[in-house]
């Protein structure tokens, strides 16, 4: 754990690395990204071990959700770096000839990345990739709730990366608070909205821009389907998007399902059968599902289930194992909407199914709640798809699958409203850690003297023409052929 008093020398060293210009060099950025790639390859076994220790994850899940996506992202950054680092030329109107303009992506300086415990490697390193590719110095504060992962990051990062420009500072709330009091050029935070508010309030003191990747209740709308559907595939995707994603402890995990009441029994049957198939009789032993991160969250989830009005709605699972912090894949039918299971983000392996009279009612249901990080819609109905896109708001919308949008680099990943703001993945990660510096180059050879005092009507008439891009009118005034008043 970091000593709070010792942070300032470290931060000064990081700032100095940035000031020296080292981190801006393409060669430095490439070397760091390559270092990350090597880390992921060489430390793969240890990473799997740490994730198993912290969360009981199977190594395939760890690869799929963390190591694999990180490897993909580093490779993308390496191959795209030159392109990302180049200026973008901006078009200028004729009136400004012979000027040229460009927009240059410049790093922000020293950035703070605070990550979460559910995907401790993924959510730490994915932003780090962007920050490094963008040429910044970085402090990473991994979550103390995943201690094995945090400790492995603290041990390996200095070995594989430039320890004078990228540091890992471990610790809990006290360390976090201290870090937040310092001045950063950007803070990238992944976590819950309550802490998100604390982060942004602290950032306001220094006018530090922030990206907040928060959560929310991500709904999955399940349209009734005819026999032409590949039911098995869709159900697998739903279950993969809930129990398969860190036992539902994921910001983009399916939180609850909305389904038309007539279809609910069919859906429930399909879900129960597939749950048994995918997760087996003993999901904890086979590690087909992760465990709950700690006692506090375990009790939180247990309390949700202990509420009698909720317990009576359990239609599958419901078993809890306090010693091993394990809760079986649990499905509920229509728990009360006012119960905490339906008012707070569940972040666990409890899957409520809420029935509606018509599937289109899901739009109003979703709109009456805070904006989620993701909305999932399982349907072939093109009209419903269009309506969801235009009538609801969320970080993202995915049709006929769940979670997988996390792996796509060409679409931004981020929230809106209560689910956060800012975005990353692919080039968006790079953009999030840079600002667009506008550069206008003018010549001293020509001048529009009408810009300056002393003022008169002639100048005003010319200005009016120029600003309305009325070049012909401009010419007329200039030649004395147009009346001005």
């Amino acid at each position, binding site marked *: 754990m970091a000593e709070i008093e010792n942070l300032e020398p470290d931060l000064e060293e990081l700032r100095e690395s940035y000031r020296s210009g080292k981190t801006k060099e393409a060669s430095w950025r490439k070397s760091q990204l390559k270092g990350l790639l090597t880390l992921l390859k060489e430390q793969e076994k240890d990473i799997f071990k740490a994730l198993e220790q912290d969360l009981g994850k199977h190594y395939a899940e760890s*690869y799929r959700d963390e190591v*694999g996506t990180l490897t993909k992202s580093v490779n993308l950054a390496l191959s795209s770096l030159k392109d990302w680092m180049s200026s973008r030329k901006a078009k200028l109107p004729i009136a400004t000839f012979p000027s040229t303009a460009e927009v240059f992506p410049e790093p922000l300086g020293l950035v703070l990345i605070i990550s979460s415990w559910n995907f401790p490697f993924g959510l730490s390193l994915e932003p780090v990739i962007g920050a490094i590719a963008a040429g910044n110095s970085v402090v990473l504060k991994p979550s103390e709730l995943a201690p094995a992962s945090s400790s492995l990051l603290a041990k390996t990062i200095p070995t594989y990366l430039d320890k004078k420009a990228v540091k890992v500072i471990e610790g809990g709330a006290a360390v976090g608070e201290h870090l937040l009091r310092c001045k950063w050029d950007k803070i990238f935070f992944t976590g819950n909205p309550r802490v998100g508010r604390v982060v942004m309030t602290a950032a306001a003191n220094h*006018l530090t821009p922030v990206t907040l990747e928060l959560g929310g209740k991500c709904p999955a709308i399940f349209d009734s389907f005819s026999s032409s559907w590949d039911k098995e595939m869709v159900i697998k995707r739903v279950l993969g998007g809930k129990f398969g994603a860190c036992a539902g402890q994921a910001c983009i995990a399916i939180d609850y399902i909305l389904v038309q009441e007539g279809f609910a029994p069919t859906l429930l049957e399909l879900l129960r059968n597939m749950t048994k198939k995918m997760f087996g009789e003993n999901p904890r032993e086979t590690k087909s599902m992760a465990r709950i991160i700690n006692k506090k969250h375990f009790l939180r989830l247990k309390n949700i289930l202990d509420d009698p009005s909720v317990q009576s709605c359990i239609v599958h699972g419901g078993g809890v194992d306090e010693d091993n912090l394990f809760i079986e894949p649990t499905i509920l039918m229509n728990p009360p909407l006012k119960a905490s299971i339906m008012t707070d983000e569940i972040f666990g392996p409890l899957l409520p199914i809420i029935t509606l009279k018509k599937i289109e009612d899901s739009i109003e249901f979703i709109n009456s709640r805070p904006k989620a990080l993701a909305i999932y819609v399982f349907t072939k109905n093109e009209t419903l798809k269009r309506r969801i896109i235009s009538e609801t708001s969320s970080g993202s919308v995915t049709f*006929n699958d769940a979670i997988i949008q996390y792996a796509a680099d060409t679409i931004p990943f981020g929230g809106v409203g209560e689910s956060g703001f800012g975005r990353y993945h692919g080039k968006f990660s790079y953009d999030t850690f840079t600002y667009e510096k*506008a550069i206008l180059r003018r010549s001293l050879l020509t001048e529009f003297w009408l810009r300056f005092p002393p*003022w008169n009507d002639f100048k005003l008439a010319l200005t009016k023409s120029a600003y309305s891009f009325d070049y012909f009118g401009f010419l007329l005034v200039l030649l004395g052929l147009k009346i001005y008043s």
Partner: protein
Amino acid sequence: MAEDSETKKVFDAEAAASLMKELRGTYASGKTRSYEWRVAQLKNLMKIVDDHEKDILDAIRADLSKPEQESYIAEISIIKSSCTRALGELNRWMKPEKVKTSITTFPSSAEIVSEPLGVVLIIGAWNFPLLLALDPAIGAIAAGNAVVLKPSELCPATSSLIAKLVGKYLDSSCIKVVEGAVAETSALLEQKWDKIFFTGSGRVGRIVMAAAAKHLTPVALELGGKCPVVVDSDINLPVAIRRIAGGKWASNNGQACIAPDYIVTTKDFAPKLIDALKHELEAWYGKDPLESKDLAHIVNSNHFARLAKLLDDDKVSGKIIHGGQRDKANLKFAPTILLDVPEDSLVMNEEIFGPLLPILTVDKLEDSFDMITSRGKPLAAYLFTNNKKLKEKFVKTVSAGGLVINDTVLHFAEKTLPFGGVGESGMGSYHGKFSYEAFSHRKSVLYRGFAGDASARYPPYSDRKLKLLKALLSGSVVGVILALIGWS
């Protein structure tokens, strides 16, 4: 259509809550979403400026005694061109952007869909009271939001005119003006907005962001800073001088966020530069600038006193080499040049926002770059030179919202350039398409097909599944095929 009596009621927390409730209702109705509605509002905004040009110029003159041409160039014409651009481009801006997808999510297609954020708050500043309220509003409306404008109370005539004209010409069920000062702004800031766009000082910017943090509201802050002008000796001096003087004194008498704040030049060149400046100033404003009608006034007695204090600072006495005349009663302040003031003087440690222009001399210009960057990142930085190496070093070393080589302030008018700050000068940007994006959420939409799902994604897990996953995530088609073959 607002009744006059409503403006007499106090705008308190209750009024703010009720305003928010009303706007949320109208926004939820979907009214602001249609292309037609947005176009109608933008066209009407254009009409405001077209039909009431004289009223607007009168109001700004009453508030700031700004010369008419300045108001026309800096405020009216920019709003007109912003509206024109938005109207011309809106269709394109509103279109979803199709993007490629990779084998990792095969088969799939994806797009990024722009949607409005919802109900947004725009707080304007006093120095360009019409522009800084309406220009962001153009972006907000084009993006389909419901909007509340809070124009600066330091310009009461303009604020009141904005309230009247917006109430008359725009859809007041979705676009409202709230007039007032600290109390009213605080009441507004307590509400949950979907975005707050603020133009003003860093001090108030912090207050706005802290208030926004309570509701996780994203903010754009257009602040200020000390915009330096570095002047080399190899330049076309008459042209450069006009551009520097224009950026400084023809921009609201230095009261502009991107006005040149101070000059840095070489010891050798300084006398020539100062001489040229003095001549230009006399040509523009005459022997007695306080009599000139072409010079804007200081906005109020508070700012006048602030500027006077900068000049009365012990550390700068004896450094004033031109100007210094002031007329407190009429809030007039002459263009004033200071030479080589100490770096710890007041005038070098806060944004001047007025007609004082310190000139610092150095031996080599490159030496000044570090000094500039150590002062906090300004909204703009300017360099006058023909030396290519110096230009490149400047562009590489100096961090500012915008850089201009061989001119000042002009980048503000280029709508294809994002206009915004970094660090102390702010966050977020706008103008042109950037205005539209500032008030939009770009929503990712992923369409997945049903063919070819990798059961490798799901439990029960195995080593063989892991091999396939590795191939899929690395984007290697060959790897995927091999893994599949090796599987069966």
